[in-house]
């Protein structure tokens, strides 16, 4: 069953038991990388050397192999790394042990950990998190946990933060085809923080809203990287009866709700398949499948899949899933059926990535002909209750493919598999790997634990920047409207605003509007090139002291821009502030020229015109007052007539 997101209400999601959490990866702004002294430079796809590696699974600290690692090992990938000598040294290549953890990165990460109200660890232990997909040449990522059990406010409740870790960034994938995978190493080793929330969000939109809050919080430190790829979200989703599925690599927050929605209903659909299998009496112990080499049988047919496969020297296998009739056609995501889950596993694990890589006998449309299916059914002895999947591939990949088809079909008995899935641009998701467990973690024996000292806690804690919500509360208390306060609390200008507010006597409401609106307008229209922060604050301070309107201050800013600061006094001195009389005269004469407006439109029209005549120097409040009086008095005059 799938449903459209627009049709859903919060209680609909409650009914399916949607729970969602976030893992936010945010690069932090350091000069050097986390475990070596390579500079952090802008991304570049230019490389000057390549190296080749393979990965093998290793035992965890508790003596277990991680399932994901074993799955990745089956793929037998040749992994090529493209290396730029400006940004990569022998450490990232895994040809040199790590250097001491970058203390600047640790400071920033601790600051954000404290901003998230987390409890700090006493010692940071560096762990190795295995990644056999090759995204890190060492085969593991160095990572360390700094804090647990934090929270951020969300409406009337709190969203809990499970943990915050500091780790090194991985490679970017360039291509992955067959058994060849290529990575670019331009972001490898850049320090990043991983913030993990509890699954406290219960609708898809809440997930996006919390992502924004966390992103703003990280920015509050002013020490995180911005721009494309500097922050990436993973979304965890489960529904009642399902299990945690992680969707990786969501680079845009607005894309989150649809992904969460589609994943929730993918799980709902898989649970329906589970119930149907149970109804049919198929359990782990009664599950039965068989496979048959049908290369020869298919060779005689004109099926275009067969023709292409045979041309490439591939073999064909038919996998019979006993009692699975019709289930592969169950819709799981918009435009996709359960067969896609099987096809994904064949693509990822057996590396058969030319699609379609399977067909099944319940498929509508392009498949084998009835006659060809009949031949296959005869060869396999499949009956009307069975489903048949046909797969093709090279002799060395076909066994893996057959085994993955069987494994995935059997997993349907349990409903939802714990998986890491890839977000796709259309809001659906595809299989990436089995969700890794705690067994992929083991201690890094190359570096000693780092004691988080009282001195560090005191130094960082005492200089902690305001959290955005605290800042917004402070602005609101000073009389600023909620939305304006919220906007300023996450704006890059918040520090500049604060220092201006401390020095000049405009009201917070007027000054904040000036920063968020007037100043932006002046900047965008290119009228204040080269304006320094010092000049800006000095103008606001001096104009305020002389009780000039904020509009007059804006006028001065435009005039002094580009000159040295001694110009400010001269401009202020020569400023011709229109008096009451001048405003009234201007309004009167303009009203004569104006046609017949109704009074509200007339007020707007006149206000604009009068301000324009005085280059916007006249205070907005004064002008409106004068215009209103002029309109009123005319109405009075005409009444007397």
């Amino acid at each position, binding site marked *: 069953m799938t449903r459209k997101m627009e049709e859903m209400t919060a209680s609909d999601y409650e009914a399916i038991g949607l729970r969602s959490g976030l893992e936010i990866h945010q690069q932090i702004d350091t000069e050097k990388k986390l475990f070596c002294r390579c500079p952090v430079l802008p991304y570049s796809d230019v490389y000057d050397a390549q*190296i*080749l590696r393979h990965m093998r699974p290793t035992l*965890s600290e508790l*003596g277990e192999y991680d399932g994901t690692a074993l799955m990745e090992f089956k793929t037998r990938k040749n992994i*090529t790394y493209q290396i730029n000598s400006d940004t990569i040294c022998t450490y990232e290549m895994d040809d040199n042990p790590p250097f001491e953890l970058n203390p600047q990165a640790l400071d920033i990460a601790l600051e954000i950990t404290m901003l998230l109200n987390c409890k700090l660890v006493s010692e940071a232990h560096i762990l190795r998190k*295995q990644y056999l997909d090759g995204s890190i*040449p060492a085969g593991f990522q160095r990572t360390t946990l700094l804090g647990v059990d934090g929270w951020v406010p969300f409406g009337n409740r709190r969203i809990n933060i499970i*943990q915050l870790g500091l780790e090194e960034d991985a490679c970017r994938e360039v291509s992955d085809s067959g058994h060849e995978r290529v990575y670019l190493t331009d972001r490898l080793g850049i320090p990043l923080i991983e913030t993990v929330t509890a699954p406290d969000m219960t609708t898809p939109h809440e997930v996006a809203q919390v992502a924004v809050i966390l992103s703003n919080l990280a920015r509050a430190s002013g020490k995180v990287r911005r721009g494309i790829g500097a922050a990436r979200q993973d979304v965890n989703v489960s529904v009642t009866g399902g299990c945690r599925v992680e969707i990786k690599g969501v680079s845009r927050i607005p894309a989150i709700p649809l992904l969460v929605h589609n994943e929730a209903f993918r799980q709902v659909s898989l649970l329906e398949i589970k119930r149907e299998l149970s109804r049919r009496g198929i359990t782990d112990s009664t599950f039965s499948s068989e496979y048959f080499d049908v290369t020869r049988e298919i060779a005689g047919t004109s099926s275009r899949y067969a023709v292409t496969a045979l041309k490439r020297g591939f073999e064909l296998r038919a996998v019979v899933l006993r009692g699975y009739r019709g289930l592969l056609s169950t819709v799981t995501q918009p435009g996709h059926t359960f067969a896609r889950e099987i096809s994904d596993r064949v693509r990822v694990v057996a590396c058969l990535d030319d699609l379609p890589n399977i067909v099944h006998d319940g498929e509508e449309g392009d498949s084998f002909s009835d006659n060809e299916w009949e031949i296959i059914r005869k060869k396999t002895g499949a009956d009307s209750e069975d489903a048949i999947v046909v797969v093709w591939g090279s002799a060395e990949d076909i066994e893996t493919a057959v085994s993955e088809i069987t494994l995935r079909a059997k997993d349907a008995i349990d409903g939802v598999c714990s998986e890491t899935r890839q977000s796709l641009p259309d809001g659906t998701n595809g299989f990436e790997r089995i969700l890794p467990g705690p067994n992929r973690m*083991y201690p890094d024996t190359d570096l000693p634990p780092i004691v988080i000292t009282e001195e560090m806690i005191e130094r960082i804690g005492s200089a902690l920047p305001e959290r955005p919500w605290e800042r917004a509360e402070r602005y609101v208390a000073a009389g600023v409207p909620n939305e304006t306060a919220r906007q300023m609390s996450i704006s890059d200008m918040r520090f500049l605003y604060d220092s201006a507010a401390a020095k000049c006597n405009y009201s917070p409401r007027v000054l904040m509007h000036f920063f968020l609106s007037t100043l932006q307008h002046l900047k965008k229209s290119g009228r204040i090139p080269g304006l320094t922060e010092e000049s800006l604050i000095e103008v606001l301070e001096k104009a305020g002291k002389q009780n000039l309107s904020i509009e007059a201050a804006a006028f001065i800013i435009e005039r002094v821009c580009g000159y040295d600061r001694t110009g400010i006094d001269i401009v202020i001195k020569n400023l011709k502030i229109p008096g009451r009389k001048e405003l009234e005269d201007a309004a009167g004469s303009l009203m004569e020229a104006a046609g017949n407006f109704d009074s509200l439109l007339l007020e707007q029209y006149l206000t604009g015109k009068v301000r324009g005549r005085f280059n916007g120097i006249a205070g907005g409040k004064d002008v409106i007052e004068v215009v209103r009086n002029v309109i009123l008095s005319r109405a009075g005059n005409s009444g007397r007539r």
Partner: protein
Amino acid sequence: MKIHNGYNVGLGVDTIESITELGRNEAHYKIPEKEFPFDPSKPNVKLFGTGGTIASRLDYRTGAVIPAFSPGELYGSVPELADICNLKTEKLYGVFSENMGPDQWKGTAEAIGEEIANGVDGIVIGHGTDTMHHTAAVLSFMVQDSPVPIVMVGSQRSSDRPSSDAAINLMNATYAASHSDIAEVMVCMFGPTSDQYGLLHRGTRVRKMHSSYRSTFRTIGDIPLAMVENGKITHLKNDYKKRRKDRKVNINTAFDPRVSIVYYYPDMKPDIIESLIDNGYKGIVIAGTGLGHVNKPLYPVLKKACEQGIHIYMTVQTLWGYVQMFVYDTGRDIMELGVIPASNMLPEVAYVKLCWALGQSHDSEEVKKIMLTPIAGEITEREPHNGYLILQGGIPEVEEFISRYKR
């Protein structure tokens, strides 16, 4: 403390309020053991473990490295080995390579002799990489005319890491021991840093040249014997000792450890040599500058040492190239003191060879004859032009090479 998601964190003892036991999860850190299969059509190889990174795994309880794999563990973690040979293993020692010394060298040589007598088709020795070239050299002298390959192997990245070079090195070494025609003591380690091919280096010409790179072992002053990759050996040299069917081998473990290497530096004072004389050293290998030089203030003490019967040999700290003490007067002067040029023997090789030679005799002429007669390629008559290739990064043609080839 290990937490549910696999992370470890350190908690200050004074921050703990109470501890409650909720359950139990015991660690069983063991490579799944499977019985190594036997196939009568495959060669029989013996793997000796001496310690080091290759044959080690971490004991997280103590933080120590546990050396040596059983065949079952090896098969469990590198099942490809069973396609190559029938493997038996024996743990001789469990030491880091810096702790290898005369006792371990003798013991290893004797163990090799016994296995050859027992009829193995090849021998692999797992060894820490730091002093692998010392052991390779000393075994080249202690084990002479072996009928089968003796292949030393290690790893630069421990086998507890997914990107370890251990598995590939082991496969390559085992393949070379099983199938190669080269019956010499060799070192088998990564050629380039990439997972591509291993190189078989002659035991007396190989040296560890980088503290951490995978491709740290290089043949110095010559080219490697062969490349080995995916069950294929590509010979690079043809002047090697061939595999034989007989079981004859000369094991000679006589060894006098009273030898030192003196790495010369400008302004070295005579008291360094005095101290060796006073402490009863019988041999000194000097790693001299350039073609084989030391400063004048050392002349009297070197003369004194030679007169007291200490055997002094000159090698070069440039590693590449020959000692040539006729070019400058100073060289001639030093030879007149009694210092003997040791041709193009690497300093570490000259050191172990002098120990071994002093194990045979203390007669200076006899020792000199042993030292200067090549036994296992430690002195070569000529240095080929491609025996010295250190490509310098940054140069356009080198950059073009490394961007095109995954090395």
